[in-house]
Each structure stands twice: as C-alpha cells, then as structure tokens.
C-alpha cells in the first residue's frame, strides 16, 4: 500500500469497536432487565428506544457512517426518514379509523 493506491477513507480501529461492543452488550442487558419490570405502556416504548439506540451505534460505528461521505450520510438519513414516513402514515391511518377494536 503506497501513495495513490492507499484508501483515503478513515480506518476505524479495534478500540472503537470494543467500546461499541460493550455498549451494545450493556444495551441488551438493560432492555432484557426493563422487560421484567411492570411499566405498562412504557415497556414497548423503552424496548424500542433501546433498540433504536443500539441500531444507531451499529450504523454510526460498525457501518462507518460517522466517518463516511456526505452522500452516504444523506442516503442513509433519507432512507430511514422515508421508512418512518411510510410506517407512521400507515399506522396513523389504521389508528384513526372508527373500527372500535383499537
């Protein structure tokens, strides 16, 4: 690897990966622990919030999005945003119908 052949992109090292691994394991422990508590409507909210936190760690560090080009960042953001629009519009439609069983 010399001169022009070298990748110009940022190389993420083992130190970062080990820290993220431990954060993910702690997140898993937390979410399982929280599922044993009686929190009513907060149980799914907490579980999904922790899952989203773990997913963000994976996307930013394991998948290098934190260190990638603006194009990649925009692509990932646009895709997730589009998905959230689709899922929230669909659920809003179902939940706002007077079908009684909601």
């Amino acid at each position: 690897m010399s001169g022009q052949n070298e990748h110009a992109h940022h190389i993420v090292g083992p130190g970062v990966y080990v820290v993220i691994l431990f954060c993910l394991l702690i997140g898993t422990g937390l979410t399982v622990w929280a599922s044993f508590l009686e929190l009513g409507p907060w149980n799914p909210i907490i579980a999904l919030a922790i899952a989203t936190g773990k997913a963000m760690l994976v996307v930013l560090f394991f998948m290098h999005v934190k260190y990638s080009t603006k194009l990649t960042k925009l692509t990932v953001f646009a895709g997730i945003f589009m998905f959230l629009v689709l899922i929230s519009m669909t659920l809003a439609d179902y939940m706002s119908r007077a079908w009684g069983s909601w």
Partner: protein
Amino acid sequence: MPDSPAIAHGAERSVYNADNADNADNLHVEHPPYLRHHFNSTEQQADTSSFAMWLFLLTEVMFFGGLFTAYLIYRNWYYPAFVAGSHQLNVIWGTTNTVVLILSSFTMAMGVWCAETGRRKGLVLSLSLTFILGLAFLGIKTIEYHEKWEKHHVPGFHYSLSSFTEPQSDPAIYAEYHDKPLAPDMARHTELYFSLYFAMTGMHALHMIIGIGILGFMIFRARAGAYTSGHVTFVENFGLYWHFVDIVWIYLFALLYLISRHQ
C-alpha cells in the same frame, strides 16, 4: 486549449495519477489492477460501491419494514392473541441469540479493520469467528423452531389452540405468566402471531444463511491472500450487509420477545 487533442488527453490522464502528470502522453498510466477504467481514482470507486451497497440496504429496510408494519397493525388489532403468542417465546434463547449476533457483528467489524490494515491471518480468523457465530445463531433458532413444531404452534393444519384456550395445559408457560384463557375466536389469531413470527425470523434467518455462504467464500479467498492488498471493497460491503442483518434482529428481539411480557 480544446483544439489540441494531445493537451486535452494529458489533462484527462493526470487525474488518474497526480504524480504522473508530467508523463501525460503515456496512454496507460500505472494504477492498481482493481481500479476500473470508468473511475477516476480508487477512492471514487470505493465511495461509489459503498453508496450502491447502501441503496441496496435501503430496499432491504423497506422489505423488512413491510413485515414490521404488518406486525404492529395486527398486534394492535388482536392484542390479547399477540400477547399470549409472545409468551410462548423463550427470553433466554432470545437474549443468547442477541448476544451471539452482536459478537458476530464485532468480529465482522474487526475483519474489516484487518483487511484495511493488511492483516491476512487476522482477517481469516475474524471471518471464521463470524462464520461460527452465525452458525451458532441458526442452531439456537433451530432449537426454538423445533419447540414450536413440537407444541403444534407452526401455522397450518396441525396448529393447536390448547395453550391459549386452556393455559393450564401448558404448565411451563402458565407458571411464568398465569395467562387467562382466550375466547376461541381470539385464540385463533395466535396463528397470525406465529405466521408473522415465522415470516420475520425466517426471512432474517434466510439472510443469515446467505451471509454465512458468502462468509465461507470469503474465508476461502482470504486464505489465498485476497482483500488484504488494498482492495477491501468486498469485505467492507459484506460487513455493511452483516451489520444490517444484526440491526433487523435487534428490532425483532424487542418486538417479538420483549414488549409483551407483562400484559
């Protein structure tokens, strides 16, 4: 000067290699063998393939997103059935599998680092560990599927409602959750829960199987010295795929195993 072909050609060539700019009349400048001719630089080539990989992963987000949306809608619709169905899942197996998959994502990330820094043995080791952890995940999933099969909780002609219409007939689950019996029409909808359970975890497992197949191919190639001499695109893009499959499981674990334990 656009009317001078030699100079225009030289200007174009210099993009390939700044060090060789004075060598402008050289028709085929030195470049790494893996650099395709329609790219200006290895950096541009790497950015382009990573962009394309992300576009593919976004189609996967939409694909799994459809399943997740169906799950959320039906869970709200037939809530008691989905809670009772969820109580059939074993949180210990689910947690073990989550840990296994997170570890495999870590070993995969280490594999990408080994490839980037030219560590052949480290790459083979990382990929092999990822391969083994992937198989461990599928093994645990098989144990869980087998349990559903034995209890007749696989949707179809042999589906049994007894765990839901008479919870006491299923002592291990009853001891943990003390579920009240469901009316037969609501109990029927537990089959919908298990249809979605098998569709979602099955599609996830299919992605794991494809990933493990590609891992086997990569281990074979890495042993022969591939990926560690500068051209790491394949390993990096496979890493993106593997981490994506990990993220899908993180959500499956929360939605299928965890959120209905108390209702």
